[in-house]
């Protein structure tokens, strides 16, 4: 279990006798407020709640590598430090996603220094296996498979743009590519995606 190593700020937490206060039910605003004030138990609930989506997002960007869980771990460690600056808790998810974007992009760029990205064989997220096809009942599952089949570079650009909310210029700067290249990659990705998704309209 995710046992808290200490009560927030060394102050003993007095548990109520009648009705246990369940942080698991707490909304993000309450959890963000408590975590910003130093309550690591509340932060633990935030991590539990948002880790699956952050991993899914990192996996869309990075492919299925060991880096995914490292990136998400680093994301939450940074998030703890900066939570007191997060004024609007309703933006917690997109705020966390921005940190994942930054950290994933760092990894993607680091790969380029070590080897040719085109030679980089990384398993795409959600490989098309018979099992995956059978669960592809919904439009979003179908989209997931289409995205997984995109060339790596197109997939990264598309994910940063459509999920991470990056602009063309931000993607270009992040991936160290000319903006015109990013536009071209996105144009190809978009054509493939809209075409492949026609059956789901």
């Amino acid at each position, binding site marked *: 279990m995710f046992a808290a190593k200490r009560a927030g700020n060394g102050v003993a937490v007095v548990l109520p006798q009648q009705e246990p206060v369940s942080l698991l039910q707490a909304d993000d605003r309450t959890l963000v*407020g408590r975590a910003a004030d130093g309550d690591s138990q509340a932060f633990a609930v935030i991590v539990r709640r948002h880790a699956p989506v952050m991993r899914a997002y990192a996996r869309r960007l990075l492919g299925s590598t060991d880096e995914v869980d490292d990136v998400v771990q680093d994301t939450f*460690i940074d998030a703890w430090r900066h939570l007191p600056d997060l004024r609007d808790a309703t933006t917690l998810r997109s705020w966390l996603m921005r940190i994942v974007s930054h950290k994933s992009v760092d990894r993607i760029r680091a790969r380029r220094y070590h080897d040719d990205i085109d030679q980089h064989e990384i398993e795409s997220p959600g490989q098309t296996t018979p099992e995956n096809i059978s669960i592809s009942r919904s439009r979003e599952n179908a989209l997931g498979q289409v995205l997984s089949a995109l060339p790596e570079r197109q997939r990264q650009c598309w994910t940063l743009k459509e999920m991470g909310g990056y602009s063309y210029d931000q993607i270009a700067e992040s991936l160290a590519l000319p903006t015109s290249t990013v536009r071209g990659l996105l144009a190809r990705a978009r054509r493939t995606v809209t075409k492949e998704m026609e059956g789901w309209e």
Partner: protein
Amino acid sequence: MTTPTDPAATPEHDDSHLDGHTLDQLSDYLDADMTPPNPEIDSSPTCQIALASLRRVRAASALLLDADAEHESALEDGWFDRILNAISLDFHAGRSIPVPNPSSSAVITTTEGAIRGLIRAAGDTVHGLLVGRCTLDGEITTQGAPIRIRVDASVYWGRPIPETATQLQEAISLALSTQTELNVTAIDVTVHDIYRP
């Protein structure tokens, strides 16, 4: 059908099939929330079909991560522990608060974070309520300065809000008066949400 059957055979910037517009332009138009309005696009059935298709993809992508997340494997406890260990040295202590002390040779201080922890602990003793963020307004680093406390809270369904908020004020007041020398002038409680069953 708005696109050619084989996308690979389509020239990079083939505008012909969308009434003189590219899919990119339509995507940008969607990004800009269709402002300012472009009458050419708005009056073109072909463009409208392509826009609808882009919108559907966008709607699906908004749901995709949640769908993906359901298929993520469970994380090991060790993964969570590493995060907790890493953050355990950063207490979010905030400002230092002087503590009255008869000795002239020793200085005792507590921290804003410790006071917030105390307020939170007091709040958690109140039936049917969860304390959120606590803010200490005032020159807290000056001994005896008037301090106003603001507490964000949420209340469980069925709990009377005024009584619960009053109980919270009393619990905080009691904890602070017995455990600190803070000059608290007010405790403001904001109930921002009610948990439904």
